[in-house]
């Protein structure tokens, strides 16, 4: 009897998962006394403005929230620098538009919000940004390692992954993040 009881106990122990929270991870910039000024060319910044009604402007052009992902991915992957330029991006597959970003490493997305913007809309923006970057990182992961970035991250998080595997994955993930770094700029609200 005790055996059966223990068996059941172990069964429940293994099958019950305590509910875990999930969400979007972000790093805030360090606190500095002087305001951070950035020395960037205008074309390397994608300016998003969210007004209090939930409307979205990208580079002073009103667009639908649903088109944001495409817009961001086009901007980041543009690769506008010329071949002889030091910023030339060999792996970009964008339109190479000279008026858009030079290189994913240079590309910055600025998010301006109003004090009355709803948090739900803000999360949509953040989510679409991550989605756009994941899409690009997935593409590169498939080219370089024949797997996807999101899969790699998942395996990394799994408890069964061995230390050696983790180390290898970490390097690969780092490399992909370096190819498409997520640069977000959030100026103080007006």
């Amino acid at each position, binding site marked *: 009897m005790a055996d059966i009881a223990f068996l059941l106990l172990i069964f429940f*122990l293994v099958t019950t998962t305590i509910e875990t929270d*999930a969400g979007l991870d972000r790093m805030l910039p360090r606190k500095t006394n002087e305001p951070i000024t950035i020395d960037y060319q205008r074309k390397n910044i994608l300016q998003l403005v969210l007004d209090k009604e939930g409307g979205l402007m990208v580079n002073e052009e009103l667009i639908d929230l649903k088109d944001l992902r495409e817009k961001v991915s086009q901007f980041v992957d543009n690769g506008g620098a010329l071949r002889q330029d030091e910023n030339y991006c060999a792996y970009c597959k964008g339109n190479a538009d000279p008026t858009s970003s030079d290189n994913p490493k240079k590309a910055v997305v600025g998010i301006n919000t109003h004090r009355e913007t709803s*948090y739900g809309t803000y999360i949509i923006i953040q989510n679409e940004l991550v989605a756009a970057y994941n899409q690009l990182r997935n593409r590169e992961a498939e080219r370089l390692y024949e797997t996807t970035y999101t899969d790699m991250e998942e395996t990394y998080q799994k408890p069964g992954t061995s230390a050696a595997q983790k180390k290898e994955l970490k390097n690969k993930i780092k490399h992909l993040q370096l190819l498409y770094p997520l640069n977000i700029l959030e100026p103080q609200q007006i």
Partner: protein
Amino acid sequence: MSKFAKKKSGELPAVSTASLPDIVFMLLFFFMTVTVMKNSDVKVENVLPNASEIKKLEKKDRVITIYVGAPTREFQKVFGTESKIQLNDKFADASDVGDYILMERAKKPQELQNVLTTSLKVDKNANMGLIADIKQELRKVNALKVNYTTYEGDAFNNLK
């Protein structure tokens, strides 16, 4: 009539209760393991937004939670309907967030103090002004790792 003739009475033997302690212990263990101690009631409306590109918050001991949202019905008389910050089980201002983080950080073991994540559980109808204030406060105390906690789902549901 052999000596070993079986006694054939029609009565059923009584159910053995010898296993009862086992069962009780089993249940006890089960509930002990699945119960999560909740140290605070949520006093604000807390319908989190949806997002699809989410990552799990592993390791509960490394998380500090901040709730934001409009006070629930019973607190509206006192605190109004504007979005509020809830730290532990009290309503607070954005300026209290820094102290709270430092206090919570001090409670954690030394080796975890540098790897803490702040989980922002914000109602989807809250305003960004408050969030921006919180983020400024977090930067002041160097709590830079933030997680916008959400439900899993299509992000565009947030508009409804």
